[in-house]
C-alpha cells in the first residue's frame, strides 16, 4: 500500500472515518473484481493529489460484511464520501473514471 491510501477494518471505522477532521473517502473493494483492480491506481493517484486535504481509506468487503450491510453497500467497488462524521454526496460505484473521482473529491474538500 502507498503513503496516501490506507486499508482499514470495520473496527476502525468510527475512529478513522467518522471522527476524522479532514474529509474522508472509503472504498469498499472485493477480490475477483476487475473494476476494483481498475480503480486501485486511479484511487492512488487522486489520493496523492489531495494529500493533506482529504484522507483515503480502503476496506475489504469480504472481511467487513457487517459494516457493508449497515451502510447498504451491495457492490464493489463503491466509494463513500464523508465529512464531519456524516456521509455526504453521491456514492461512486462500478467503472469509475479518474476524472469523476477527482471531481467528487474537489467538491468534497471545497
Amino acid at each position, binding site marked *: 500500500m502507498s503513503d496516501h491510501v490506507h486499508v482499514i477494518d470495520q473496527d476502525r471505522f468510527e475512529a478513522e472515518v467518522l471522527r476524522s477532521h479532514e474529509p474522508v473517502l472509503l472504498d469498499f473493494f472485493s477480490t475477483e473484481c476487475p473494476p476494483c483492480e*481498475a480503480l486501485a491506481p486511479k484511487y492512488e*493517484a487522486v489520493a496523492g493529489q489531495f494529500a493533506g486535504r482529504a484522507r483515503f481509506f480502503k476496506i475489504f468487503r469480504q472481511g467487513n460484511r457487517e459494516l457493508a450491510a449497515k451502510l447498504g453497500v451491495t*457492490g464493489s467497488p463503491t466509494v463513500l464520501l464523508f465529512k464531519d462524521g456524516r456521509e455526504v454526496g453521491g456514492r461512486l460505484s462500478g467503472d469509475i473514471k479518474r476524472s469523476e473521482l477527482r471531481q467528487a473529491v474537489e467538491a468534497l474538500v471545497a
Partner: protein
Amino acid sequence: MSERFDLIVVGAGPAGLAAAIYGARARLKTLVLDEGVPGGQVKTTHKVSNYPGFPEDIKGSELAAAFARQAERFGATIARSVEITAADLGGLAAPEKRFVLDDEREVVAPAAIIATGARPRPLGVEGEARFRGAGISYCATCDGAYFEGKDIHVVGGGNSAVEESLFLTQFARSVTIVHQFAEFQAEASIAEEALRHPKIRVLWRHEPRGFHGETSLAVMRVEDLAAHAVHDLPTDGVFVFVGMAPQADLVKGLVPLNAWGYVETGEDMSTPVPGLYVAGDLRAKRFRQITTAVADGTIAALAAQKYLRDRYPSRP
C-alpha cells in the same frame, strides 16, 4: 513531448488484444490503452464454454489474463486504468492519431484501432441510478457474493442473463428471472439448465418499471405485460443483463454509425479516416462473441500493417 508508436489500440478486450498480438508480432511498436484492466467484457464473465481451444470451461478472468499475457509476450505495451482526456484521430490531410492520457501524457501513432466494445445497457427506469451499488448490479462476478442467502432478481433473458443467473445460484437463496418475453433468447443448453434449476424461477412477460427503498433497494416495481397490471416485488438485489450499448464516443462524427450507434466499417475494418480501424463489438455486425471480436481484431491489425507498409515504405 509525445511518445511515438506505430499502432495504438484503444480497448483491451478480445478484439484489441488480438489486434495487439498481431501488431506486436509484425514488429509494430504497439500500445494498448484501456480505462480498466485488460479483458473487456470477458474479464467479468464467470465462465466461457464456447471459445475454441478450451474443451473444459475457462473462467473469463483467466481467458482475459491469457490474452493480455500473450500480447505482452510479443512486446505490446498495455496501459491500464488510463483515461483518454483528449483525442485527435486525424483526417485525410493529417493522418496522425494523438491521445492525451489523464491530462498528463501524450501518445501518437500513424495508425489506430478502436476496439472500445460495449458496456451493459441500463434499463432506464426510475430509481436505477440511485440504487446502483446499493442493490442494483451489472456484474455478477463482482457483486454476487454480497447476496449470500438472499432472494434476488435478474432482469433479462439472453445468454448473459441466463448464464449469470446460474452463477448467482451459488450465493443466493433464490433467483427470479424477470423477462419481457414468453421464452428465453439464450442458447437452448443453458436455457434448459436454468429452467431445471431448483433455485431459479421465471416471471415471463414482465418488465421492471421502477426501484424503491430507503438507503438500499427494497422493492422492484414490475409490469405484467399480459395482464397490464403493476406489482411491487420485495427484493434483496437486482442484476441487470438487458444487452449492451456501443462505446462510440471516440469516433462519433468521424465515422458512419448505424441506427443503434454501432460503427459501419469495411470488410477489412477500415473507416473513411485513413489509418483508423474499428474492431469488435463496437462494429455494426450480426453476432457479437469473443470469436468474432478476435477475428475483427486480427483483420484490423493485418489491414493496419498493410496500410503502414504502403504509406511508409521506408519503415521495416
